[in-house]
């Protein structure tokens, strides 16, 4: 399986390291020609307005949308969760997303940087132990559509969700050196989804 990391802006390096630790040799995706090469994609943490804008300017917005619609497995952390959401609250005027995940996400829902925090949370599907979750100006999921499953919550706000081939977390597992979420994405989300497409 070839996994790409969208490398327009953000903590690309940390996701690349996490994937390498999972035995995957990822590719950087900045152009449509690089997107074509990958079976699955990670949308990193970063500034969602910047990433969306660069994606549009460099012709990645529509190709990623159609790949998601065609079943490409995608994992997004923080800004990546916003980019996967069908709708967003507290967005910049006209802010676009790739969409595909039937959720409404509130940007910066936990507050500004002064409110950024770490917490040990339970991640209920396949990861029995607590996960150290790092939330940075983090969003939360405000509404979920049918077919979306909540995997983790903080103060009753969903912070990890998945639908069939899409996974999103409002925290950053790539910052902690704990690769269970990336492994979960590869083994439990991406592989089964790609089997199905075949």
């Amino acid at each position, binding site marked *: 399986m070839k996994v790409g990391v969208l*490398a*327009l*802006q*953000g*903590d*690309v*390096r*940390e996701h690349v390291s996490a994937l390498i630790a999972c035995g995957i040799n990822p590719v950087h995706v*900045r152009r449509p020609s690089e997107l074509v090469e990958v079976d699955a994609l990670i949308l990193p*943490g*970063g*500034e969602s*307005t*910047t990433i969306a*804008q*660069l994606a549009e*300017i*460099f012709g990645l917005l529509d190709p990623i949308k159609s790949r998601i619609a065609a079943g490409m497995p995608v994992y997004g952390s*923080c*800004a990546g969760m916003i980019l996967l959401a069908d709708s967003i609250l*507290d*967005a*910049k005027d006209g802010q676009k997303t790739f969409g595909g995940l039937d959720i409404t996400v509130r*940007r*910066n829902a936990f*507050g*500004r*940087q*002064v*409110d*950024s*925090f*770490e*917490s*040990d*949370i339970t991640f209920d599907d396949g990861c029995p132990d607590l996960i150290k979750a*790092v*939330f*940075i*100006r983090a969003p939360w999921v405000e509404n979920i559509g049918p077919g979306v499953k909540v995997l983790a919550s*903080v103060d009753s706000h969903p912070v990890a969700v998945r639908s069939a081939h899409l996974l999103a977390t409002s925290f*950053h597992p790539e*910052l*902690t050196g704990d690769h269970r979420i990336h492994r979960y994405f590869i083994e439990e989300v991406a592989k089964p989804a790609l089997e199905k497409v075949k």
Partner: protein
Amino acid sequence: MSEVKGTGRVKRGMAEMLKGGVIMDVVNAEQAKIAEDAGAVAVMALERVPADIRAQGGVARMSDPDMIEKIQAAVSIPVMAKARIGHFVEAQVLQSLNVDYIDESEVLTPADYENHIDKWDFTIPFVCGATNLGEALRRINEGAAMIRSKGEAGTGDVSNAMQHMRKIGGEIRRLSSMREDELYVAAKELQAPYELVKEVAQTGKLPVVLFTAGGIATPADAALMMAMGADGVFIGSGIFKSGNPAQRAAACVKATTFWNDAKVVADASRGLGEAMVGINVADLPAPHRLADRGW
């Protein structure tokens, strides 16, 4: 389930999210909107851009809280603000305003010519300037969660930023090639804590994100800094002292992402109108050089 705020991971992690991006100086809400629309990852709210501080002279201080709050209300991206070196009360004020990052900046007039702010005391993360590795590690030892090379702010002359990036990079490469028993003397020479020196020698990089700043005025300048190993770029006077700020800002964002693709940098550089006029750093009398502030 306990939530812990202001941890090292949360502070340094915030800077990781800015990587590959451009942070732009803005002096009002309109400029902040232009920066956000152009794809800035954050804005730096200040009363006068460095070029004006330089031109007008006088003591440069923290910005008016009203002005910072207007900018916070205008944009959804992170808002940073500057405190004077050593002025921990300005920093406390900025923290109370919920700015996302504090820049303890040599661009403002220093409040303390010996000590920097004890940055461990704050929930809000700090970025500090450095001209060499020892200075960067001293700031990190004081709690800085992000470093930027200083360059010479407000000049539009990229030569000092280049010099500082080469210096920091060169000193890191030198540490990486040393025997472990040589690191004690290296720490002494760098005037930096041994533990941090050892960490840099082992990892081959700073323990925090390294941006660059000072004199960046064109897309090619931004790309050059990325090629020198910067994780991202601060652009101060370069955007809003130019002929067409919106277009130049967007062009610098593109060039920062595609720094190693000369064709994209070329396209981004087309038809931008006048760049800021600029001053050659070599023509600045030594007492007027901001990069020499901080120790």
